[in-house]
């Protein structure tokens, strides 16, 4: 795993991080309907390991804007998990496949975010926090599935074209 950062990479990382933050804030009035999963999948397919920089700039910016609460701890690993899963299946270009991955990720988001509560309040607290959030996980699953199914193909074409044009 070699991550070398050139000037063009810095520009891409900056633009992608800004895009993630803007999209997240613009859609924050819709609970658990987000395009971050889609953008991280696309970014990982297109830019590979450099997506790690994008994820952590995004996570720190989110903390700076909304406060470094308990919710923020899960931002330190949850998007990285999605990136790692995407890296494994990076060659796949099927919108249905990525819709499935994003849907499953959305459905497990609450479970992943309740991990810090295991250490704060034990198994009972983590489980109760997870169960209370299940309706939002279901919304997250459906939202991710539909958004990736609809937007994966056109956005992948756009990302791929930009990469070919700018990173020859």
């Amino acid at each position: 795993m070699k991550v070398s950062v050139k000037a063009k990479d810095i520009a891409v990382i900056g633009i992608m991080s800004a895009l993630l933050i803007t999209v997240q804030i613009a859609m924050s009035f819709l609970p658990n309907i987000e395009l971050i999963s889609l953008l991280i999948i696309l970014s990982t397919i297109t830019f590979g390991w450099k997506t790690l920089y994008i994820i952590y700039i995004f996570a720190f910016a989110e903390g700076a804007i909304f406060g470094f609460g308990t919710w923020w701890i899960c931002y330190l690993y949850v998007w990285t998990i999605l990136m790692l899963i995407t890296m494994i299946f990076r060659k796949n270009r099927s919108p249905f496949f990525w819709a499935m991955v994003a849907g499953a990720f959305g459905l497990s988001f609450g479970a992943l975010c309740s991990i810090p509560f295991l250490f704060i309040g034990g198994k009972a607290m983590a489980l109760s926090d997870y169960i209370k959030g299940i309706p939002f996980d279901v919304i997250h699953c459906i939202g991710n599935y539909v958004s990736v199914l609809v937007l994966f193909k056109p956005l992948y074409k756009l990302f791929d074209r930009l990469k070919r044009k700018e990173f020859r």
Partner: protein
Amino acid sequence: MKKEKSWIKILLATLALFAIAVLLYFVFLKNIEPPTEGIKKITVRVIVPGEDVQEFAITTEADTLRQALEEEGLIKGQTSTYGFFITEVNGRKADDSKQEWWCITKDGESISSGADLINIRDNDKYELTLMEGY
């Protein structure tokens, strides 16, 4: 033939994903506490940092916390997809510019759903705390 098989796989995987989602939703429904029938007494403590804690004993036939608090004229708020979002308690408005918000807890334990999704039971004790910072 190969394409057909791949479609069947996709369809089955999608069905499995949504089946798991439905199953989890049933787990959620099974774990919600139903409200107590008839009249119940609940206690609500309003906590604003730096001010005296106010306590309200409420006797109600309402099923949800929102109904009980609105009957008492104790809260104002707005509906969001997360449920009813409290913006004002006993005349004290949460100031967005200071990132203030009202946090609902039951016996000190956090509740992540809105006041209209909380079924009340006899002798429940709730706290409404003004928090600063998201």
